[in-house]
Each structure stands twice: as C-alpha cells, then as structure tokens.
C-alpha cells in the first residue's frame, strides 16, 4: 500500500455524517489518495462533494456527527487516527498532520494577542514551555518566512485579512507537521492576499518545514499554479486524479470537463464569449445514485452507468479516471481490468 516515498497514504476512507432522522450521509465514500514528499495535492469539486469532510478526516479532526466508518490513514508509514475522540492522545494533531481550516481568519482569539495564542498552542503540546520560549520560537519562524515579527504583539483585529490568514498558516505549522491540510484557505481573500498566502505555503514546503500539502479549493486556476497533482471529487468519491497539467488541460472524466468549461478565467475576458456555468448540484448523499454517481448529470451516460461502478481508465501512467464512457471509447488496452473507485 503505497511506495516508501509516500508521505501520506489514505486508503478507502469512509466518513459519514449521522443524520438527525437516523441513517447516514455518505460525504466521503471510499476515497484513496497519497501525497508524496514535497508535493501539493490539490482537491477540487463543487460544494457538497465531500472535500471539506475529507480534509477533516485527513487532519484527524473528525468529530460527531461525523464518523469515520472505515479506511486507514498512514503518515510516513505510521497509522494516524482520523477521529478526534475525546480523551485520546491528540499530540499527533499539529505535529504529524495539521489543519488550516476554512475561514481561518476567524480562528484567532479576538481577546488575545497573537503571541499569547501561540503560547497556548505550544503549551498544549509541551506543558513545560515558557512564554518567552514560545514567543522566541514564533519570532524565529516569522523571521525565517520574511514576515514582520510585530504581528506577535498585535490583536487579530489589528491585522488585515490576508495577514491574519498568513499568521494562521504560521501557527498551524509551528510544530513542524509532516502534512498540512489546507481547506479553502484563500476563499475569503482578495487576489493579492491569495497570492501572498500561497507563496508562503510554497515557502514552507521549500524550506522543508512541512513535508507536503493537501490543498482543497474549487478555484482551478489556483491549482494550476501551485498543485503538483490534482484530484477531482464528485459526490464523496474520486472521479479523476493525475498531474495537474493533464487533469486541467486534458481532462478525461466528463465531470472534470464540465468543471473546466464552467470556469471563468482572466483569458476568457470580455462579454464576447459566453461561458455557461454548471447547472444543478451534487446529489443527496444520504441516498447517492447507484453505479457512477455522476450519471444523472452526465451528457454521455448510458444504461450501464446507472447499474454498476465505473471501471478505472488510465490515459497516462500517473493519470486515472473512473468512467464507463471513457472505458468504452478508449482502446481496450488502456482500460484497466479492475472495477471500483479511482486511487489517487
């Protein structure tokens, strides 16, 4: 399961939400992926496809009503629990995997200076740490990342949104986690602040402060610019994964093609060319459609798509997609024998 150089390996992860009326919402249903050392794995898809739920499981912060019903998470070959059960030793969180949550701007305590917040974070992992040592450590890290040390003395409201987000990035990597899970870190930022934050994340990777990043976003242009590989999720499952260039510029799966066609980019400028967005939305995950989950929205769907799981097709060695239409239109040698979900 995974080569030696794999930093993070997730195998057949199933994370379901308990429904208030009984039953389960299968937000992540059999997802496998791996992140190599030094790599940024991008995860894209519409809202409601399970991206954030997967991020929570990978960052081992899943808590009720989200339950991990199956699968394994390995970081550098060691098992990491995906559920944040109370009372269990949580030291792996922040040290092995760390989460940079959606809307991290509001994750800082508004009544505390940043340095006091840093102290609290460090103290929860090392009860013996002194205030001075904590501040020095944060100071040193900020200097290394070319960020002004004065932010330590500031209250969150004194910082701009972009700076707050970068401070959160620094704090969530203060314990040198092996993997950083970043869930939509740029969604509340303007373009210049987005670029600065992503530059910081790349810097953390290049200085080997962290080993790898899982970046969840629905902005394909961002993935195109920073992600080594990209995985497309639909309705709790992986539909395509591969090197970012290939996934974006020669998408195989009909869903990836639809996402690409719906993306507004700078180059498509001006009213002359009309771009149609995606209509409809992902299915209700308490009763996902049978067979290929994309079949009700797929322009190429045939009878077989609603009946059985799509086979895995591999357009190139690193690039896989799960689709009946592809399997039937590709030469037979290209279609892999196995059935079931695509591995990332």
């Amino acid at each position, binding site marked *: 399961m995974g080569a030696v150089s794999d930093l993070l390996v997730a195998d057949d992860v199933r994370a379901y939400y308990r429904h208030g009326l009984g039953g389960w919402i299968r937000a992540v249903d059999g997802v496998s992926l791996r992140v190599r050392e030094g790599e940024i794995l991008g995860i894209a898809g519409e809202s409601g496809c399970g991206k954030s739920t997967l991020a929570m499981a990978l960052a081992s912060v899943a808590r009720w009503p989200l339950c991990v019903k199956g699968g394994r998470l390995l970081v550098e070959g060691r098992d990491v629990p995906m559920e944040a059960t109370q009372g269990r030793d949580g030291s792996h969180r922040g040290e092995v995997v760390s989460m940079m949550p959606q809307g991290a701007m509001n994750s800082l305590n508004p009544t505390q200076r940043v340095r006091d917040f840093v102290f609290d974070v460090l103290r929860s992992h090392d009860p013996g740490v002194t205030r001075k040592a904590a501040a020095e450590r944060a100071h040193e890290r900020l200097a290394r990342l070319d960020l002004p040390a004065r932010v330590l003395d500031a209250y969150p409201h004194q910082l701009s949104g972009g700076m707050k987000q970068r401070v959160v990035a620094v704090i969530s990597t203060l314990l040198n986690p092996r993997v950083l899970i970043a869930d939509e870190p740029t969604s509340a*930022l303007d*373009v210049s*602040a987005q670029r600065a934050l992503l530059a910081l994340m790349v810097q953390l990777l290049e200085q080997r402060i962290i080993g790898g990043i899982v970046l969840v976003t629905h902005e394909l242009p961002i993935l195109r610019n920073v992600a080594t590989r990209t995985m497309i999720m639909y309705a709790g499952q992986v539909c395509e994964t591969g090197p970012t260039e290939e996934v*974006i510029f020669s998408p195989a799966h009909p869903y990836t093609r639809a996402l690409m066609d719906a993306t*507004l980019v700078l180059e498509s400028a*001006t009213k002359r060319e009309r771009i149609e*967005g995606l209509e409809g939305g992902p299915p209700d995950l308490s009763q996902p459609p049978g067979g290929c989950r994309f079949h009700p929205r797929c322009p190429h769907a045939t009878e077989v798509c609603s009946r059985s799981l799509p086979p895995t097709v591999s357009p190139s060695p690193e690039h896989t997609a799960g689709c009946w239409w592809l399997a039937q239109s590709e030469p037979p040698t290209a279609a892999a024998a196995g059935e079931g979900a695509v591995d990332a």
Partner: protein
Amino acid sequence: MTTDGPGPLLRCTGLTRVFGQGQHAVRAVHDVDLSMRRGEIASIVGESGSGKSTLARLILRLLAPTAGSVMFDGRDVTRLRGFARRRAYWTHVQAVFQDPFGSFNQFYPVRHVLRSALRLEEAHLSRRERETRMTAALESVGLDAGSVLDQLPHELSGGQRQRVMIARAVMVKPELLIADEPTTMIDASSRANILNVLLDLNRDHTLTILFITHDISLATYVSDTLFIMQGGQLVESGPVEQVTRAPEHDYTRRLFADTFSLHGGSWRGAGGSAA
C-alpha cells in the same frame, strides 16, 4: 424619475466618506467622481479595504457622505431626509449583497422574501398581480417559480439563493442594480451562471448594473466599463477593452498580474507581487 434623458443615470461628484475623527479618521472613500450611462454594466474592482462597499452604500444612500454629491437621473439624492424618501429612492436603485445565506430569514419560504420586497411599491397590488410579478422575476433569473416559491432557504443551493436575491431586486423594476460581490460565496463552477443572469437582465430589461468585485477576471467578463479603486480613490477608469489591453496605473497592472490565470506559465513560487 423615469425619463430617458440623455444625461448619465448616475453621477457621483467628489464623493467622500470619512469614518472616525481626528487622528483616527479613515477616508474610506476619497473624492470619487464616477458616472454611469443608462444601460451599461460597470465594475468597481479593488482589494479588500479599498472602499468599494462603502462607495456602494453611499450610492444606495444607506450611508450619508461626508462630502460630495450623488445625482440619480438628474436629481440630487445626496440629502434624502427621512426613511420614506429613501424608500422611494430604493424603487429605482436596488442591491444584491455578498452573502446569500445571511440575506434570508431561514424560517420563511422564498415567497415571503419576495412579497416583502413588493411592499416598497406605493400602490397596493392585488394578490394575482403579486404572484405574476414574483413568477416573472424568478423566471427572469432562470428559476422555476412553481417549485422555488414555497421552498425554504436551506433547500436551495448558494447559487439558487443568490438568484432569488437578484429576482427580489429586479421585481421592484429598478433602473440601477448594485451587485456587491454577488459571486464570492458561490461555487466557482456556478459563478458564470450568476454573471450570465446579470448580462441577460442588462440585455433584456436594459437594467444598468454596477458590479463590485475584487476579482478582475469576473469584472472583465461582464463589464463595459471598469473603475479601479485603491485606498478609497478611483485610480483608473475606462472601457473594459482599453483597461485590459493597456492598463495605465501600477495598481491595475498588479491586479492583472496577481490574478491566477489558467493558461500561461505556471507560477509556483515565482512572479507576481507576493508581498
């Protein structure tokens, strides 16, 4: 106020708003001159804190300016005293805001949201007239009135909710629609739909639209005219083709440079003004 005069529909002159006093004074909007002709789509583009939303609120008369004037259809609306006068103004100028989740009362169906907007009208509408107006408005934004009217906000997707908010605004038949970051909280793959709704309303109903965004790629997609705003001031303005082809101000060039492009060279750690 419905005359199709040759003058601009909206003209702001020296518009300024200062928050706070003395040392702590912040000039959120500083000496802005802006004019929009009937039937055009213009965008205000700038980073967070550049004063875009304050400018929108000044034009909407939700906020009183410190200095300067707002002329709408040849009439000075800078000093509209009393709620009743402002309410009358809002039958001509409507707005859609960023958060399609916060703009709804979660306990009421869509019908209620739309019906309360019709109260802006002075004339009393019959039940049938109200229904016709609501249905027509929902259809003009591409929603099926039959199913949407009785749905609760949580039963709609973000994109659908935002379209309901646009329907609510256009139902009043305004001449100017101010759309303040309407796509920010919408999935990247359905943003085009919201913008297409704006384009269609502009074409079919000759609605004048002021679109506010931090994303210059969205602005270039919908606009005839671009206004670039930085630190409370308009630093560049002009027809979209001209500003896109030959941006004059450094800040405009930076906006273009910072925007992530899908084509062109990969970035990864280099280029841009990542400061």
